[in-house]
């Protein structure tokens, strides 16, 4: 009985600072400046510029999620195969960059990718033509992959490292090729980690506004930029909230996916 009381502070906190704030977004999103009920803020997603921004955001975040998955899965396999005893150390290596501020890390990419930046400097040394990398969608994807890769690696590594070696040995003993082992053993067992990783990458990538500003030269308007501008510059909080509600739909889909494939929280990143 007394144990239940322990959740008291948390439940109050959750209501006060998670549920009520979200309810306020709902309120703002469904009203206009005079406080009257309207769906206009939500329907605004259908206007050409918003729809385009959303579409672009979906495309870029999907691309970066796929890149992250393709990079992270082999990496997690390598890490698993290494069987480095100090699992924590590997994790530290991926968490460590986070101690260097997120904005600075992204700005550093600007320095690397710019026309007269570091990478083009190297290319010039090798007598290769300079590449135009900054302010392109590819630069934004790179920024997303860079910033969110750890969130894909860690959950996958977590589920992979929990797979018993004997399971794999058994498969090999029974004559499975390494491809078959991968396809029939490793992949199915790592689904919770993959789903969790996809979520942890896709959602922040979908909603970012900083990366597109810094690496896209503000030429590429993502849905996150639109929302941010409505709140900080356009001062139309109702429209900003309405568009946030649209984003919430994607987040709810993510949560539903997690609930379906990762019931026991095996795929938690941390």
């Amino acid at each position, binding site marked *: 009985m*007394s144990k239940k009381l322990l*959740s008291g502070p*948390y*439940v109050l*906190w959750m209501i006060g600072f*998670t549920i*009520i*704030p*979200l309810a*306020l*977004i709902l309120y703002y999103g469904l009203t206009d400046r005079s406080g009257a009920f309207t769906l206009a803020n939500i329907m605004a997603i259908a206007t*050409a510029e918003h729809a*385009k*921004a959303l579409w672009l955001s979906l495309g870029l975040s999907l691309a970066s999620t796929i890149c992250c998955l393709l*990079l992270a899965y082999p*990496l997690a396999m390598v890490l698993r195969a290494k*069987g*480095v005893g100090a*699992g*924590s150390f590997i994790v*530290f290596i991926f968490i460590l*960059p*986070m*101690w*260097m501020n*997120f*904005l*600075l*890390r*992204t700005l*550093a*990419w600007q*320095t*690397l990718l*710019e026309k007269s930046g570091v990478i083009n400097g190297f290319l010039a040394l090798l007598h290769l033509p300079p590449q*135009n990398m*900054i302010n392109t969608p590819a630069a934004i994807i790179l920024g997303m992959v860079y910033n969110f890769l750890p969130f894909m690696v*860690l959950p996958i590594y977590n589920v992979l*490292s929990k797979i018993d070696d004997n399971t794999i040995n058994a498969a090999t003993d029974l004559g499975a090729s390494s491809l078959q082992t991968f396809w029939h053993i490793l992949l199915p067992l790592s689904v919770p980690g993959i789903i969790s990783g996809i979520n942890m990458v896709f959602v*922040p990538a979908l*909603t970012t506004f*900083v990366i597109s500003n810094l690496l896209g*030269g*503000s*030429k590429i*308007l993502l849905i996150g930029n*639109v*929302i941010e501008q409505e709140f*900080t*510059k*356009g*001062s139309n*909080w109702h429209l900003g909230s309405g568009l*946030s509600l649209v*984003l919430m739909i994607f987040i709810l889909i993510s*949560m539903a996916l*997690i609930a379906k494939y990762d019931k026991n*929280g095996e795929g*938690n990143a*941390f």
Partner: protein
Amino acid sequence: MSKTYRSLKQFFSNFYLVFILIFLYAPIITMMVLSFNTSKSRTQWGGFTLAWYQQMLSDPNIISALYYTLLIAFVSALAACIIGTAAAIAIDSMKPVTKTIVLGVTNIPMLNADIVTGISLMLAFLAFGISLGFKTILISHITFNIPYVILSVMPKLKQTNKSTYEAALDLGAHPLYAFFKVVFPDIMPGVLSGFLLAFTMSLDDFIITHFTRGAGINTLSTLIYSQVRRGIQPSMYALSSVIFLTVLVLLLITNYRPRQKKSIHDTDALSGGAFHKNSLPERIQKSAMAAAAVMILFSVAFITFKKYTTASSNELYVYNWGEYIDEEVVAMFEEETGIDVTYDMFETNEEMYPVIEAGAVRYDVVCPSDYMIQKMIENDLLVEINFENVPNIHQINPTYLEMSKSFDPQNKYSVPYCWGTVGILYNTKRIQELGVEPPDSWHDLWNPALAGEILMQDSVRDAFMVALKDLGYSMNTADISQLQEAKQLLIDQKPLVQAYVIDQVRDKMIGGEAAVGVVYSGEMLYIQEEVQNLGLDYELEYVIPKEGTNLWLDSWVIPANAANKENAEKWIDFLCRPEIALRNFEYITYPTPNDGAFQLLEPELQNNKSIFPDLDHLEDSEVFQYLGDEDDAVYNALWKEVKSW
């Protein structure tokens, strides 16, 4: 065969690991290198220096931001640990249905978009009437930290043997005693890893802090963001390098211990072995606890100290553009008047306005631009200045007071601080290479030969000004067909534009990133000086296009809800003193409207036409006017169309 296959596989996996590590650490190494760069520019290497490390230690902004960042990270992680661990224990003993619901809600702050979390919290704080500041950041960080703790502790709880706790109770132990003796040691690694994670997340957060912070408080993230527009101070790189290396060394030390024999099944994130209670040796736990205790004591002492020292009623809240004052001047003002100044910065007028309007933070004196002052006057957000308290107003050249009348008709609300023009900055060498004549008209920004070489201003009115002036219209037009025309022009220009920037244009032009850029005249002195210092092989020239341009004024005003109006007037008067205005001019290099200060300048500077152009030659130029909310919305909508094209 199988052996070569294996070593090949080994080779590739090593190669891949190294590749990823380079990818992860390349930007960090870049930053570290830049922290030793003499030049402020990110793209030019000016030589080796340790000066930024010294500057970092002596910059009060950085130190205070570092202090708040660490304090917030620490306190929020600690609070999250206490609330989260308690919650995890409770959740563990819940019925499955309740458990699912609670865990579902727990996931929200983790899965939700940061921008939505940040905005929703901001709306809630405003609705609850909590003014934005330290506590709102702290509450927000605790909110998004709790889930990380719960999720780290839950798995550990599952592994504990419930019977031992019951056995302890049966043997007569008090529940609390039993908890700390029996359960807590088991879940300790989970709590610790939750703490570390929460600390890291808090440290790295920008977006949520961005929306929930208030006056006079910056974390490193928000400080950096406010610098991004005007160019990051390299001392920021220095600080980050120090933090990074400290953490690296700490991690190496804690990880360097005699290797325990472990099988692969034991590896678990962060805590280093879910099934290994001993994976964190006792002495490390103890020293962590001791360190935590010391930090709490330190923080509490510091907060009370801060509270005590800032409790004086004699204070002033200043809201100004980023890097728009010589910090020394603030210190001089504080010393002379005994007034405590809380100094805060904004990047755009549009960002400043809702802050003043919502009254979330009560500033006493603000420095917006012309059209925004007009908007604030029309919406009753300003109070008349009592000029009896500002005797130095006569130092301001009457020309500028006359100019001010376009937005403040009776000169009642504002005192000019800086003024200038907007023009085209071009790289003489680059222009030649591209075979283009030096620009003298806005229309040159539509020259296809300059594709990918143009930097445009990333703000609605500035961008439309360029297009409207090019079309020969007024930049204050509200005529929809003229605006549509301008929009189309901007859309046509977009493929030629390299980037839309605000103050970054300065660094990019110095770095030779682009051939032409739209800039504010105030940046010129700095730009030319820097080009000279770096010994670059090109020059940057400034031209005011012949079609006329935007004449702008930034002036001090006092918000209607200011709590310290007289102090605000003292501040304005202080800044109008010629020697103070001169000091500021030398630091920020934006043209001063202060005649006294102008007379003190070297003749060479007085005659520098890109800084102090002859006003008679600018008859086609205009000052921005506020067009009303509806027309503003039209501009915004059209601009959004341009940006999303």
